[in-house]
């Protein structure tokens, strides 16, 4: 089955629990099998499978996600200024990243995963998720920022001291 590892990992990182992720991947391949007549030969099979994944995922999510939640996070606080952020520790452990990622709201998490892990272009993400290009860009920027913030929070909860001292110096300047 093509692209199975990519789809499985993405589904599990976006689902509420692993079993839900497994169900999602299963549905993707069954749906792809049934609706292959809609696939245009010569186009990107991987992007097509991801499109089905997100279609199914959004179907699941409609049960428990409210649009208002997204709007709240997409408010202008997202401006990418030169305000000091809580520093991210130098050594980042896999479990800390996954824990921090779990704290990023799913609407942002999915764009970050598609861009930073699956290396889709902005345009491909926009097509996959049926979002305007500008929304993809703002969600990615905001999602990355939320991830950094969550990562710093996870690290500090373990008592890990960030060694980005330069940032602290800058803050006190």
């Amino acid at each position: 089955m093509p692209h199975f590892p990519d789809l499985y990992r993405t589904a599990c990182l976006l689902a509420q629990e692993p079993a839900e992720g497994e169900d999602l991947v299963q549905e993707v391949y069954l749906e792809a099998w049934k609706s292959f007549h809609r696939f245009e030969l010569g186009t990107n099979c991987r992007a097509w499978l991801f499109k089905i994944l997100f279609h199914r995922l959004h179907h699941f999510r409609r049960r428990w996600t409210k649009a208002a939640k997204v709007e709240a996070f997409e408010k202008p606080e997202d401006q990418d200024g030169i305000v000091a952020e809580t520093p991210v520790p130098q050594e980042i452990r896999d479990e800390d990243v996954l824990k921090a990622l779990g704290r990023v709201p799913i609407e942002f998490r999915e764009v970050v995963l598609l861009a930073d892990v699956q290396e889709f272009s902005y345009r491909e993400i926009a097509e996959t998720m049926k979002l305007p290009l500008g929304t993809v860009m703002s969600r990615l920027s905001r999602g990355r920022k939320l991830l950094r913030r969550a990562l710093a929070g996870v690290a500090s909860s373990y008592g890990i001291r960030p060694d980005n001292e330069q940032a602290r110096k800058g803050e006190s300047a």
Partner: protein
Amino acid sequence: MSVLNSNSKQCDRIRPHLDAYLSNELLAETTSDVLRHLEGCENCTRELETRTRVRDALRRAAMSQVVPEELRQSIQRQLRATRLGFLGGSRGLTWALALAGLAVVVLGGLAAQQWISLLRGRRVVAGVLALGVADHVQCAIKGHNYPDIANPPEVLRQKLGPQFAGVLEVVKQNLPGFEVLEAHICSVQGSPRKYVHFITRGHGTILSVILTKSEGVQLPNGTAFRSGASRSINLYEAHLEGMNAAGFESKGYLGFVVSDLDRNTTLQIASALAPPLKNALEAGPGSTAQMNTLHLSRLTG
């Protein structure tokens, strides 16, 4: 929170581009601007380094997730079962051989190629069945080319002409629960292809039985593409434009049953109709060659 750098105006201008720079989505000119600024700005360089580090850590952590082989195998089993369902449980030996072949392919690491090949076959099936669906949708559904009260049989036989008048009885006899409202020869706008079209009503909906000359169009061979068989006639199915279509080939003709009834019902109807239709086409005076001589008694769509 406070400002990090005395050169804040330039930083303000560059920082919004850092995410796009990280994703390699910037235009060449903007990339040059960013690089020029980074050369002289320690804070922005550090910021970019942090973002790159987090992105790499995320990629590494995501890829560290173990992909369960048993899930892959479970899905493959389900896909095979789906195909068995299409087969209707017949043709044991052929299917067993096909399964064995599939297993060898999977074990040989060629699963992806097999997958694509199977899906391509399904697409060909859908492409052929789209002919019948197009006629049903354009002529019967959108064109509404049928009366509320069924046309008398003699009128329908006249519309069908001597070549296909006999097929009317075959359709009637093998379509219990349905009333033939209309029968004619028609074509779909933009195509010279001619269809022998029986429009019927039953089960609370409109169902079309359609015959058309193959004219080189073929359904693919291979058990995996079929959805069943009826007395050695292979049956194919597809869901298109909100309709379920079942199709079969018969001596130079393609036959279709199209409706919005569920897949199983549509297949059952096609299964009952295909053998007698094949016999009628082979035995009747208007077999393959005579389709060319038909005049359009009614143009629709």
